[in-house]
């Protein structure tokens, strides 16, 4: 087992014992379910909406070349500088370069998972630039120097009390239990940062090919401030974010809000089509769009798992995942956590080291059922498992399964095995629940029902004779 896998197992195990954490998360998600179902009911037909969304995404992803070119030519025509980055490193270098060229000293950043994916903030900070996260949740985890806990709710694991303590320690604010007051504390600090920043960084929720604009969704208005106040705006966008037409947003904006945050539609939806144009009173002087591949074209080439590029990063699959709910977002140690993270990470960071995530699932399918764009998440976990065995599997695992198949293909051997099991069971009580117990992994927390004295096969044979 690789160390990453060991750390995952150990952290997950520890988290299951954290009752406070488990009930906190389940409580929060309980409210989300109620809200999400209410909002789903506002669609004429949620299932048909999912199907339509999946078809639009299928079209977009399967004609990515065409739509990306269309997007780029439109947005360039308005003076946007577009950079195609094959790797995260290239994207970081380019953005650091832009910052250096313009002598940027401070950056305000609105939430962008692509930024997390390529460790953009770290790269910029290393070059001596200050980067401030402006999404409240992101700001909180940045102050705590930890990774986001969830792709949509980065600080959902923290109580008001913990946030108040953090602000008190880091910002010197007076302790408070009021969420409004906590928000105001962050806002007062962040407003100053917006005014002082030379550059704003954002992601994009969608990139519209037809009109050449990006669509940015936030609930705090921080996306708008980060992208329009500073003199330079850089948007870091995964190439899969493209949608064919503006009309598609009529479906995707409410869908993202519903699945992601149990809202009918998010509070601020901003479309950006270029830097400040002549005769326009505001907006940045320069607008850069960085189109990020970073492994996405590899997924595109994989017909079986191409649909993972449909993902709109709503976080809906995390919210329903019983594993995620119990082990929490940090156990994964990945950029994308929960079901979509378990599917994507082996592709992005290597199957051998990350395959354990594909096995850390009961294959219950709640994620697939929740996904608004109908990604076959749990079946992709099965495909990753197959690929893991194909490329490198421990010899003993192969042996066990060969043994299993031999047993199953020879009814007599199978019966013999069962009889041995039945005999062995008589002595099970001596070791049950101890480390000597061959089925300790089960019996440490659960009873094992006794093997029936007569199996079904025995009964049937007796009845026939």
């Amino acid at each position: 087992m690789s160390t990453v896998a060991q750390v995952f197992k150990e952290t997950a195990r520890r988290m299951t014992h954290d009752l406070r954490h488990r009930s906190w998360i389940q409580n929060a998600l309980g409210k989300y379910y109620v809200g999400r179902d209410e909002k789903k009911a506002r669609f004429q037909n949620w299932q048909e909406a999912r199907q339509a969304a999946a078809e639009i995404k299928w079209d977009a992803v399967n004609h990515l070349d065409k739509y990306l070119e269309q997007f780029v030519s439109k947005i360039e025509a308005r003076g946007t500088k577009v950079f195609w980055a094959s790797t995260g490193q290239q994207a970081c270098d380019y953005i650091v370069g832009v910052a250096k060229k313009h002598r940027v000293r401070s950056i305000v950043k609105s939430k962008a998972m692509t930024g997390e994916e390529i460790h953009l903030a770290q790269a910029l900070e290393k070059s001596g630039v200050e980067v401030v996260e402006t999404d409240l949740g992101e700001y909180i985890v940045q102050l705590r120097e930890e990774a986001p806990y969830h792709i949509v709710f980065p600080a959902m694991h923290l109580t008001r009390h913990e946030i108040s303590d953090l602000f008190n320690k880091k910002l010197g604010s007076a302790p408070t239990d009021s969420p409004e007051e906590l928000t105001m504390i962050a806002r007062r600090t962040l407003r100053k940062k917006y005014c002082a920043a030379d550059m704003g960084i954002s992601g994009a929720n969608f990139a519209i090919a037809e009109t050449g604009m990006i669509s940015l969704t936030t609930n705090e208005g921080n996306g708008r401030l980060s992208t329009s106040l500073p003199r330079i705006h850089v948007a870091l966008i995964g190439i899969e974010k493209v949608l064919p037409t503006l009309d598609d947003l009529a479906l995707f904006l409410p869908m993202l809000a519903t699945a992601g945050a149990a809202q009918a539609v998010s509070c601020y939806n901003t479309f950006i089509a270029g830097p400040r144009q002549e005769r326009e009173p505001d907006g940045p002087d320069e607008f850069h769009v960085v189109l990020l591949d970073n492994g996405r074209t590899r997924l595109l080439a994989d017909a079986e798992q191409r649909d993972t590029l449909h993902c709109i990063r709503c976080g809906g699959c995390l919210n329903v995942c019983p594993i995620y709910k119990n082990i929490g977002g940090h156990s994964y140690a990945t950029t994308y956590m929960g079901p979509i993270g378990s599917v994507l990470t082996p592709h992005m960071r290597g199957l051998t080291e990350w395959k354990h995530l594909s096995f850390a699932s009961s294959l219950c399918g709640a994620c697939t059922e929740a996904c608004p764009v109908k990604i076959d998440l749990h079946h992709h976990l099965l495909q990753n498992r197959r690929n893991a065995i194909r490329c490198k599997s421990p010899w003993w695992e192969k042996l066990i399964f060969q043994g299993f198949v031999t047993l199953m293909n020879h009814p007599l051997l199978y019966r013999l095995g069962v009889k041995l099991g039945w005999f062995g069971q008589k002595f099970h009580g001596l070791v049950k629940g101890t480390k000597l117990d061959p089925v300790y992994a089960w019996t440490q927390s659960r009873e094992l029902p006794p093997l029936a004295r007569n199996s079904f096969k025995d009964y049937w044979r007796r009845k026939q004779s």
Partner: protein
Amino acid sequence: MQIGLFIPCLVDQFFPQAGLAVARILKRLGHSVEYPAEQTCCGQPAFNAGVRSEAAALAKRFIQVFDRFEAVVAPSGSCVAMVRNFYPELLDLAPHSSFITRVFEFSEFLVDRLNVTDLGATFNERVTYHDSCHLLRELRVREQPRQLLRAVKGLDFVELNDGPTCCGFGGVFSVKFPEVSTVMGEDKVAAIERTGARYVVASDCGCLMHIGGLLTRRDSKVRPIHLAELLGGAP
């Protein structure tokens, strides 16, 4: 109808009564039921572990053994999901191949194929039903077991108010990640106990084994029971 009975390993070894109940019910409805003794496993454990060539060997055997029947019935949503949803991929079969469309889970067979919901059973207890994930999400069987339960005389049916969420069994998952599996099961057991039911019914023995193992460990009064056993009554 000529029905071939598929009895998955967990039923065979731990819950033979459930298998017997299926046979009894189908016979009572006037069908000929046969249990081909050479049957083994549908291949699901190997398939889920990613060991596909081994799974394919078992899948081929499964088809050989059961191909001669008009219908194949199994008291397990999980195994039927394996055949219906994964054999096509595994063996390169058409999803609507005539074999695959003849394999049924017990409750869907009764309700959808035979149009039977009332089996004339009586059960004077409060009962809740656990949706097994593969039955619910792979086979989309949700109403059928409920219809069968609601027709039972004396039975007080209460819904489990938990999502529906997985019980945490997940085959090898339960021993690869025992702690995670256990807390999932504990959430399930807590939801079951909140209903005040005396029995928790399910259509998959994996779930029953997991939920039952946790119930016994905490000395709960709630008993796990397979749907067929509840409907089939005493022999």
